[in-house]
């Protein structure tokens, strides 16, 4: 957290009654394994290596031994090389960090206003199913997930109109997360730079994050898509599309 960022609304601190101190959104590197994940990986790795060594079938020996040795190495070094290769980044607290930015040709207060209307966000973000506003600072978020939907309650932890919004999930959230949206004037007459940083603890740790990436349920890509959708909605009022255009697809085994 940088020093020039107040943690509460400077104009109305009372609007944020029990805001928790803001958690850090600084990037510290790739895929350090949390202690729990390390110990689980270590045990499973050693067990697999043992099973591999005992196995009579050479192929099984090789696969079990190989996977076991890999997991053991990951546990020993505290790093997940697959996560690193997939550029999964982390905060100092070991959460997965996702950050991106887009420049939108509209004034910051207008864009802030769109974002502050939390209940309207699902129109912009397709993976969001709903945001239910509970009171001034609390809201209930429901997202689509591979297993159905996931819900949690969140609280606005900083609200600086026209400049910044920060939030954190409340205790008991299925996916612990926190983040911020910063709106800052772009140099020249280019509008506003919208910067989003969000951190979360993926179910299943870094292994879960890798699995999510491989199955295409990827927060970094979702954020990118959402930011582009937001920009287009603001600059054009619609999203360009080729959905339903003519083609020779039917003749080639697809939809026309």
């Amino acid at each position, binding site marked *: 957290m940088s020093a020039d960022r107040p943690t509460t609304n400077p104009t109305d601190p009372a609007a944020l009654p029990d805001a928790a101190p803001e958690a850090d959104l600084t990037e510290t590197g790739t895929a350090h394994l949390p202690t729990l994940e390390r110990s689980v990986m270590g045990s499973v790795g050693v067990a697999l290596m043992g099973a591999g060594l005992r196995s009579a079938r050479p192929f099984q020996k090789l696969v079990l031994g190989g996977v076991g040795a890999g997991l053991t190495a990951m546990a020993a070094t505290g790093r997940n090389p697959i996560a690193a290769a997939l550029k999964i980044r982390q905060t100092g607290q070991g959460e997965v960090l996702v950050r991106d930015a887009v420049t939108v040709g509209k004034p910051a207060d207008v864009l802030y206003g769109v974002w502050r209307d939390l209940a309207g966000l699902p129109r912009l973000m397709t993976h969001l199913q709903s945001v239910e506003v509970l009171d001034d600072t609390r809201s209930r978020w429901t997202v689509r997930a591979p297993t159905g939907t996931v819900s949690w309650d969140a609280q606005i932890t900083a609200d600086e109109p026209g400049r910044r919004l920060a939030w954190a999930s409340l205790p008991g959230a299925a996916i612990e997360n926190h983040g911020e949206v910063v709106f800052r004037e772009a140099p020249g007459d280019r509008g506003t730079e919208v910067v989003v940083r969000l951190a979360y603890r993926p179910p299943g740790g870094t292994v879960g994050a890798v699995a999510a990436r491989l199955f295409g349920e990827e927060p970094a890509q979702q954020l990118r898509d959402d930011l582009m959708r937001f920009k287009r909605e603001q600059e*054009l009022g*619609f999203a*360009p599309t080729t959905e339903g255009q*003519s083609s*020779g697809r039917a003749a*080639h085994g*697809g939809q026309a």
Partner: protein
Amino acid sequence: MKAIVWQGTNSVGVETVPDPTLLLPTDAIVRVTSTAICGSDLHLLDGVIPSMEKGDILGHEFMGEVVEVGRDVRKLKVGDRVVVPFNIACGACDPCRRGLFSACDNSNPNHRMAEALYGGVSGGGLFGYSHMYGGYAGGQAQYVRVPFADVGPYRIESDLRDEQVLFLTDIFPTGYQAAENCGIVPGRDVVAVFGAGPVGQFAARSAQMLGAANVIVIDRVPERLAMAAAAGCQVINYEQEDVLIALREATGGRGPDHVIDAVGMEAHGHGPGALVDTAKQRLKLSFDRITALRWALLSCAKGGTVSLPGVYGGLIDKVPMGAAFAKGLTFKMGQTHTHRHIGPLLSRIEAGEIDPSFVITHRASLDQAPDLYRTFRDKHDGCVKVVLNPWA
């Protein structure tokens, strides 16, 4: 309607496909009166542009008559005769407002694909040019859907023939922008153009219009060289001469002040470099063959400009970067910002400074297009440029 459809590598065909419809209130439908095959369509035919899908309608150089407009279209009316830029721009984003129409932020619905390849940014959409560039259906068809109808289409009000204005959609502005990017000092600068295909022809004539002291055109196809020579260009056939020596001699040892590479990724070239390029492209280790680019960097004079209208797709290596650094070269490149050139270039056509129809060697119907794709690719029958009439 009838349309030219990509059926796979080295296979295009004429098929009957559904008529296009308005998909958004800012769309228009244009009845195509003339369309052309572009040199960059050959990259699609050859399968070197990724993300083509079987059934895609090709074509990005087309013009016609507006037959339907969406309810939010303000400037364009049914009955207007228009030329349509090959690139699709929204007109509202920052690049569009700065005149960088081909760099439009908003017109490519498949921005993900280009972002993955090109460092997190995508260019605007293109008609009939792969899903990486938006997957928009193209204009080698009887009708075409034109998105952002108030931004792209340019109304032709004079009685100029289709053939005189059709190339405002791509190859004329592309050649012109390549010459403009050189920053030619009139009466002083010598410009070399690698590639005497349609874009090279327009680059050469544009360099002349911008006052180049001399224009030298390099190719291997006699008909193309003859076309350039007819415009008063000096020509070099690289299969008969050592091109770097010939250029040194033609410029008193300085090299051309500016070099335009109007060839791009599928350069033929020869020598060991060209063989390595070809092998790597076949093995999918590389998209691009860069003989023309190497020659451009090696031949350009100190302090000169290397201008690239030729299309490059991916990663290249064995680039003589040391030569470029030693000579202090400037690189200018990129997809054409067609929208901003159409008006001024139309004025030049109306003033009689240039008649773009000089480049046409073949006229045909859509049904003949698949054969002509091959004729054009193989440079048979003196083929430089093919114009199609979708209603013939």
